[in-house]
Structures are given as structure tokens and as C-alpha cells.
């Protein structure tokens, strides 16, 4: 995980986050900032954005599992089979297989063959 730069204004009215251009997070973040006696509170949630490789192409995703990734990419109920990092992931395990940054995912379907 890369370093996150942040600054809070003294008045607590503005929040500026400076993130590296290619910031990639590997898990869900939630931070609560509060102004102490001045009574304000800000909850900042950052969905984990993973960079993975899908069928040979880099992709950024907020999906946590392989099943979520398929939905996010629009495969829906398509007849596909999957592999992660070279290993077959059966349909029943897509819900439980959690993604990590840098994973290579293969999504295949029936095709003509000799």
C-alpha cells in the first residue's frame, strides 16, 4: 500500500486529500476525522481499488471477490469459467475467493476448437 497524504484545515470545514496518482489500496479503509470540541465529524470511506489483470489487460476494480468482479465487469449470468493466478476457480468458490492487487484473472467461455 502506498502512503496517503492528507491535510485538514484548521477550521475543520475543508478536507483535502492528496493521493498518489496511481494509488492502489489492498483493503477497505474507513477513517473518522473529528474537530474535537468544535463538534464536527467526518467519516471518510475509501473503497479498496485493486489493480488486477483480466484476460491480459490491466483493470481497476472495487470488487472484493471474484464473483463481484464478474458482476462489476458486466458478465452477469454469462456462461464463463474462471482462473486466478493460473489456478482454476470453480463457480461455487467465486464468492469466497478474495482478490489481491496484481492478481491475474482469466475469464473464458465455450469456443470453436479443433
Amino acid at each position: 500500500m502506498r502512503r496517503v497524504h492528507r491535510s485538514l484545515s484548521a477550521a475543520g470545514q475543508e478536507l483535502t486529500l492528496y493521493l498518489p496518482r496511481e494509488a492502489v489500496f489492498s483493503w477497505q479503509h474507513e477513517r473518522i476525522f473529528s474537530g474535537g470540541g468544535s463538534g464536527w465529524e467526518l467519516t471518510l470511506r475509501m473503497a479498496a481499488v485493486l489493480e488486477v489483470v483480466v484476460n491480459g489487460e490491466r483493470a481497476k476494480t472495487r470488487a472484493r471477490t471474484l464473483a463481484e468482479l464478474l458482476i462489476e465487469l458486466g458478465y452477469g449470468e454469462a456462461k464463463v469459467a474462471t482462473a486466478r493466478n493460473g489456478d482454476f476457480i470453480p463457480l461455487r468458490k467465486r464468492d469466497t475467493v478474495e482478490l489481491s492487487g496484481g492478481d491475474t484473472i482469466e475469464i473464458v467461455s465455450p469456443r470453436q476448437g479443433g
Partner: protein
Amino acid sequence: MTDTMIDTKANVARSGAGRDALVVYGAELTSRLFLGTAQYPSPYVLERAVKAAGTEVVTVSVRREGAREKGGQRFWEMIAGLGVRVLPNTAGCRTVREAIATAEMARELFDTDWVKLEVIANDDTLQPDLFGLVEAAGVLVREGFKVFPYTTEDLGAAERLLAAGCELLMPWGAPIGTGRGLANPYALRTLRNYFPGVPLVVDAGIGAPSHAAQAMEMGFDAVLLNTAVAKAGDPVAMAEAFGAAIRAGRTAFVAGMMEVRDMAAPSTPVAGTPFFDLK
């Protein structure tokens, strides 16, 4: 040729009385033509070619699918509608690991434990990597697959594949897509005679119906081909031609062919030839 006669008995015995069926992994097949599904001008032509060939087994593959494509789904529906068995391949796999993962994905997609196992050694010849093939076959058999290994004529590799649990072998005729026919008939004949009871399917390199007939006459149990039909001027007619050639070759093998001789022998009776004793 004497060896061929021995094979004939073995084959007829295996095929049972009255029927000449090929049994692979418990499945009884009447057609001895396995047909590939790639490179046809259209799905419609493929569909008609499969019917014209009378084939009962078609090969298929798995390939990357984009989210917005629905090609896989459409292809699957078309194949399912043909009512034939599907034999998924691991075409293009270069390592044992790739081949195993591909076979596993294919098993889930096509709902079959049959797999045509290809582990490719190099791009120019697409020849099987026999070491990887034997290793992958062992793993897949343990995982419950029924492995159809795409191999060469090598007897040592053949023995190891059988020891690994393969119940049939698919030696190449010539490199995939070349259409050269049986590049090494002597080695193929040796393989046939060495394993008289093992179903052997000549896979790849077949270009003409005569090549397929030749393989069947030699006693091979079936032929698997794709390009020769798909790339023909009229794939449907060519599928029919291959079906006929394979039936002819098979019938000839079972009938038992005459011995080849070096010197001529008259077929018309010599006795009673007019003018025979006039010099």
C-alpha cells in the same frame, strides 16, 4: 500385413457381434469421425457439416471472453443443439499448469469429463510436448478426467500415457493444420501393431479423405480432423466425403486386405488361355 490380420480379429472381437462400434471410456460410438468445430465460414455451415459427416463427437475449446461479447453463449447453444458429444481441448497450452487449469475450466463449462489433452512444445510444428503431456495426463486422470492425449507415434510416451490412466491415444498424422496426411506411416503402423487392443485415433494433419481412409485401413479406430473440412471449398460436401472415406477404410480393415506383393500375379486364370501352347 500378417500383423494387420491379427488386428482385424482383435477389432472385430472388441466391436461385438454384428455391430462395429468404437467404445471409448464406456461410450459406444458408431461414427469413427471426430470433427473439429473451428474455422468454418459460418455456424450454419458447421452445423450442416457435422450432420453430413454423421459425426458423434466434436471438439471444442475455451477462449477468453469479453464482458460484452456473448459469443460463447451462442456457440454453446448451437453445439448443445447438435446432440453430439463434446470433446473440449487444451489447444495452445504450453505448460502442464496451463493445460490442467484449461481442462478444469472446460469441464465446468461443457459439463463433461472428457478432455483432448494438448501440451504444445513449439509454435512451428505444434508438436506435443511428450514430457508435459504425460505429467498433465497423470494429474488429470487423478482428478477424474477421461483423457484423450494428443501425442506422437512414440511408443515410450504411449506406454507412459496408458500407465497414467489414458484408455486411448491420439497420435498425430502430421502437424496440425498441414494437411499432409500420414507423415510417418511406418511409425504409425508400428504403434498400431504394438497396441492392438488400445483405441487409437489419428488426430491432426489429415488433408484428404484418402488420408483418412488410409489410417482406417491401417487399423486405426477413428480419425479426428478439422481444417480439411472447414477450409474446403464446400465444407458440407467434404464432411460427407470424409464420412464415406472413413467408413470405407474401416470396412476394408475389418474385411482384411490382401497381402502386398512385389511381382505380378495374373488375376485371370492361366489355365485355358487361348493360344497358350502356341509359340
